[in-house]
């Protein structure tokens, strides 16, 4: 470390050295340093390279809010060096260069900037022409910033909700005072959000008076009081990244995203110091005055040896005093204004022998070894112009104090407006929504006594809104704010490189040319030029560009031009913050582990994990064949717990079901199930199931696995209008179920169910019964979804595992085996049964899928009836047909397209090879002209192979339904 400078500071412990690596070189800093301050301490002033022209860049604001100090970590790019604490062994690189950070080959582009005018990319790549092919890859190499490491495994991010009565953003004078005033009611829970690692805001580094005592006195007093106040919570290193209606805030702290609800919100975010615009205003060594103060007072780093201060504000004089006290030789104060607002400041610096040049500006900065070496100063001749006889001043530090812009972003996000006050020469936040206030420099107020007064007024009002205020409201102060003389801060140069937006390397001419091209509105200037689109999101260029456009187009004032919209997020945040913890809700039936034990491979069905097949991974076809044949020849069991279950109970239960579903249910006998097809108001098929009538006023309706929640909502919605006397309960998770299917299913069930007559006569097809199975209370439904004799057995959820074990034990002598969803899909396909959402889509009408039989045409009403009647009168545009493909051909897949020659005539919805039928079968939507049995289709498979298919009658298997009615 070349630095032996020592200065009282807030954050650095100079007794603890820390060694890290930057650009392959070892550097030593102190505990508390960040990478930027540690490098500066070591006289390493080039930290990164700029976006477009690859210009060397160093510390600019030292807030983490500009792009000048973005660095590359092994796992992550675009990390602000001024927010990255140094740790032993840390490895950091500059980014966005070719060669070395100091000698970047791509910096040659700076010499060709005339050939890269504003809107270059739009113009060059607007159309898909050869430019893109020739130059696209080339430009991509030298533009862009950090590098993403695709192998990065990410980290642990999470989210948390917070709720506070009063939330204060910022902990400067305004924030601390507001917090203390708000906390006067012990019932008010107050939260301070501070983006830095300590309370105090600008009190920590700025100077409020000539003596240099006031800021620290404020800070020491207020911080001590806040820290001992029980009902104030402090969140440091936290940034409020978004503010939405009703004070709904997004706050990022390390790897956690907070969603914060504030009953009362007091915005005290302070302001952003602005730069000046002149040739080479981006050289390392040129920085904001506040950055120099931060280096000095937060980190104890000497910003430079010889300094020039260019200012359009009184604060520049106070910075000069700070630097002088720290041993920096202040060569000159260059004041753009004719007059100082507070003459005592001028006297103070003159007393120290610091030379002041008024009505003067920096015309250009000069470099040696790529960092600042001197400046050319000249008298301002007219707006934006400088006299030709400039004076050269040697310096290694140039502090810019171009005035301030309020940190308006959060206020505007929440609904406030930003207005330019011609009287005060500054932008001011106005029209804040209810329960939201702004105090402090961000409010356009700079005088501490006025800030204190406003804080008291606002806090009292906030407490009043909460019903917690005591006493009368404080009166507004009559004291007047100092008016800072406006000085035009932009000085174009024949050699350009006077940057308005450092992030995007936008120069004065770029902004002017954008306006010349017709993009007169500042929002269009932004879009055409990318102004304010970089990491700093316009914090340091919005004001300058507004001034520039206004000066070019004299018909508009700065207020007329305004600034670009500030949208969330306020600062960079990571995808991890949005993702939070990496958990994904997953539903398991009570039998889930039985499937795991049986070697199931699972598939995701909606939120459920369902067994796809039982066997080794990759053996699906063999397993499906085996499992399906066992159902045909013997007995199989499948977990159907995921099916939706809805209980409709009450005097109007039958009427309700009759209105909801397409078929007739009013006369459905007790003890019977009936197929239930659900359509929406447009007549589109949205679900199906069976409605089981257990008593006159008690229905148990099943719905599809993925559709039950939607069905439940539809039920609730409709009955909110109908007001029928029914209770609707989604009991999906209350019940667990299996389907025992196959010619031996009755024999298996008879072993464990003695209180239900399972005979053909006693329990016919589509009958429903209640009884006990394996000693468990159960509902039994005789169904035929898979086309064989079968029983669905539904038991209360937590008996599921025991039921499964009991059935498997009872079925041992019949060689029972589980079958998965894939086998079930094949079995139902053989029967021509559709699966909603697979064989239907968002426009499927009952007629298209041969379900007209399930539509009660004589019913007075059901949801979708009118639409179905209209559609039925028209010629259908497609039909779902069954087709078969010989087993010697490739098995087509779902969504493969059907052709007649070159004519596209349809698409496949289901397709599988049937071991039972020894051929491939499927369902497809086709043009009605090709839907008659015997018609042929050509199906284009994955490899463009064309497979010949024949349209056949449905079902493919057991058309007499003899098997399911055994």
């Amino acid at each position, binding site marked *: 470390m070349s630095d032996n400078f020592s200065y009282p500071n807030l954050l650095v412990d100079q007794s603890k050295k820390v060694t890290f690596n930057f650009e392959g070189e070892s550097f030593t800093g102190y505990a508390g340093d960040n990478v930027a301050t540690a490098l500066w301490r070591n006289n390493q002033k080039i930290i990164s390279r700029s976006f477009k022209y690859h210009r060397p860049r160093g510390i600019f604001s030292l807030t983490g809010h500009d792009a000048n100090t973005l660095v590359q970590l092994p796992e992550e790019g675009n990390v602000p060096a001024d927010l990255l604490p140094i740790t032993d062994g840390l490895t950091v690189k500059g980014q966005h260069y070719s060669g070395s950070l100091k000698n970047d080959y791509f910096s040659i582009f700076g010499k060709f900037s005339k050939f890269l005018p504003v809107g270059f990319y739009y113009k060059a790549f607007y159309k898909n022409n050869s430019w893109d092919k020739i130059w696209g890859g080339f430009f991509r190499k030298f533009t862009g910033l950090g590098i993403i490491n695709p192998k990065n495994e990410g980290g642990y991010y*999470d*989210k*948390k*909700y*917070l*709720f506070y009565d009063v939330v204060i953003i910022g902990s400067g004078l305004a924030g601390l005072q507001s917090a203390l005033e708000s906390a006067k009611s012990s019932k008010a829970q107050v939260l301070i959000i501070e983006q830095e690692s300590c309370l105090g805001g600008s009190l920590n580094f700025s100077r409020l008076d000539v003596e240099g005592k006031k800021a620290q006195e404020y800070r020491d007093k207020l911080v001590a009081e806040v820290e001992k106040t029980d009902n104030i919570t402090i969140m440091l290193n936290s940034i409020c990244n978004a503010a939405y209606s009703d004070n709904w805030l997004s706050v990022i702290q390390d790897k956690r995203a907070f*969603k914060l*609800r504030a009953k009362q919100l007091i915005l005290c975010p302070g302001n952003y110091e602005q730069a000046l615009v002149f040739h080479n205003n981006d050289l390392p060594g040129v920085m904001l005055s506040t950055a120099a103060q931060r280096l000095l007072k937060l980190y104890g780093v000497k910003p430079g040896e010889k300094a020039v201060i260019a200012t359009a504000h009184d604060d520049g004089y106070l910075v000069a005093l700070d630097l002088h006290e720290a041993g920096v030789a202040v060569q000159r104060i260059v004041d753009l204004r004719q007059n100082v607002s507070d003459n005592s400041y001028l006297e103070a610096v003159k007393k120290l022998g610091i030379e002041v040049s008024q009505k003067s500006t920096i015309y250009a900065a000069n470099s040696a070894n790529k960092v600042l070496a001197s400046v050319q100063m000249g008298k301002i001749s007219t707006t934006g112009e400088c006299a030709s006889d400039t004076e050269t001043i040697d310096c290694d530090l140039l502090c810019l104090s171009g005035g301030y812009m309020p940190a308006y972003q959060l206020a505007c996000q929440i609904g406030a407006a930003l207005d330019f006050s011609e009287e005060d020469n500054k932008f001011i936040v106005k029209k804040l929504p209810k329960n939201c206030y702004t105090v402090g420099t961000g409010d356009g107020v700079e005088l501490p006594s006025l800030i204190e007064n406003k804080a008291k007024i606002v806090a009292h009002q906030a407490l009043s809104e909460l019903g917690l205020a005591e006493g009368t409201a404080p009166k507004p102060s009559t004291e007047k704010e100092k008016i800072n003389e406006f000085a035009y801060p932009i000085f174009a140069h024949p050699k350009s490189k006077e940057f308005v937006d450092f992030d995007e390397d936008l120069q004065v001419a770029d902004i002017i040319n954008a306006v010349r091209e017709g993009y007169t509105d500042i929002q269009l200037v932004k879009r055409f030029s990318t102004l304010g689109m970089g990491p700093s999101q316009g914090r340091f260029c919005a004001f300058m560009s507004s001034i520039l456009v206004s000066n070019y187009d004299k018909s508009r004032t700065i207020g007329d031009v305004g600034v670009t919209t500030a949208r969330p997020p306020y600062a960079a945040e990571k995808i991890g913050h949005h993702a939070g*913890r990496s*958990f*994904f*809700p*997953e*539903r*398991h*039936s*009570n039998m*889930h*582990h039985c499937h795991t034990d049986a070697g199931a491979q699972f598939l995701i069905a909606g939120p*459920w994990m369902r067994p796809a097949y039982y066997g080794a991974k990759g053996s699906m076809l063999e397993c499906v064949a085996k499992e399906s044949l066992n159902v045909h020849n013997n007995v199989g069991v499948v977990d159907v*717990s995921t099916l939706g279950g809805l*209980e409709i*109970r*009450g*005097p109007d239960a039958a009427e309700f079901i009759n209105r909801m579903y397409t078929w007739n249910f009013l006369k459905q006998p007790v003890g019977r199930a009936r197929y239930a097809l659900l359509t929406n108001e447009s007549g589109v098929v949205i679900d199906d199931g069976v409605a089981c009538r257990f*008593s*006159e*006023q*008690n229905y148990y309706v099943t719905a599809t696995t993925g559709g039950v929640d939607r069905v439940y909502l539809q039920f609730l919605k409709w009955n909110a209008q109908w007001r029928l*006397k029914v*209770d609707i*309960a989604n*009991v*999906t*998770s*209350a*019940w667990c179920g299996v389907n025992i299917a196959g010619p031996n299913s009755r024999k298996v069930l008879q072993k464990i169910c003695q209180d239900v007559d399972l005979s053909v006569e006693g329990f016919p097809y589509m009958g429903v019964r209640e009884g006990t199975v*394996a*000693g*468990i209370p159960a509902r039994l439904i005789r169904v035929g979804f898979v086309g064989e004799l079968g029983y669905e057995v539904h038991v*209360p*959820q*937590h*008996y*599921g*595992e*025991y039921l499964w074990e009991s059935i498997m034990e009872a079925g041992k002598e019949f060689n029972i085996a589980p079958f998965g969803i894939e086998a079930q899909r094949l079995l139902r396909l053989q029967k021509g049964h559709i699966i909603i959402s697979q064989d239907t889509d968002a426009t499927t009408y009952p007629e298209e899928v041969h379900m007209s039989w399930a539509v009660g045409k004589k019913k007075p009403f059901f949801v979708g009836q009118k639409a179905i009647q209209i559609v039925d009168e028209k010629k259908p545009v497609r039909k779902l047909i069954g087709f078969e493909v010989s087993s010697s051909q490739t098995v087509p897949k779902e969504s493969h397209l059907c052709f007649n020659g070159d004519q596209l005539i349809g698409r496949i919805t289901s397709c599988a090879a049937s071991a039972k039928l020894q051929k491939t079968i499927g369902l497809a939507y086709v043009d009605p002209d090709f839907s008659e049995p015997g018609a042929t289709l050509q199906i284009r498979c994955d490899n463009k192979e064309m497979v010949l298919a024949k349209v056949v009658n449905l079902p493919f298997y057991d058309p007499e339904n003899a098997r399911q009615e055994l």
Partner: protein
Amino acid sequence: MTTANQTNYRAALYRTHQQGGANFIPFGEGVIVSDYGDSNKEKEQVKKLSLADLTSVDRIGFKGADTPDWLEKQKVELPSQPNKAVQLADGSIVARLSSNEFFVLGDLKNQAQTCANLRKNWEFKEDYLCYLLHRNHSHTHFVLSGEYAEEVMPKICGVNLKAPDFDFLDVAQTSVARLSAVVVKNKLSDGTTAFHILFDSSMAEYMWMCLEDAIAEFEGQPVGIQALE
């Protein structure tokens, strides 16, 4: 020694608890985790932050326009308004989810008879709008307790469940760890804050994993029912 799968009624997580070294005791229709090896240590843990699976604790639900009438006839004290709960003398908790919907939780000692009596006395009557809901199957019951419980809930729930906005015997029907859930705030016998979290039983494993992760920040641990009594 009680084994976890000796009963017909099996809560979804018994394998997870077995892997965590749980000891089980018979409880209600099934079994419940008694402890994970050291119930005294777990008692201390409960005061700080703990998670317990109370799925085997009895519970039942009723809804329908005639439900308040029927429950009152059963001499069950009812909360005066929705999203409030009352604790009965036998330790059961009656949560009112809406004007006509109630969720009854059994006690931690398995001695309260309210749920069992209601189940026994209820019958499906035509034209009488009071319907039983199998909450002991549709819902899983976890309890999060300890001084840090109020710090954990905001990690998984967007509703402010801290006092005074959310007091003891307040009820929230909300989203917890992205699942619909009923949350009842109560005190354990020693006054420790406890959140009863009731949610879809098919999500038990997911929710347990989420909560274990959420409590890790505050060194929370799973505990058995002995520690809660």
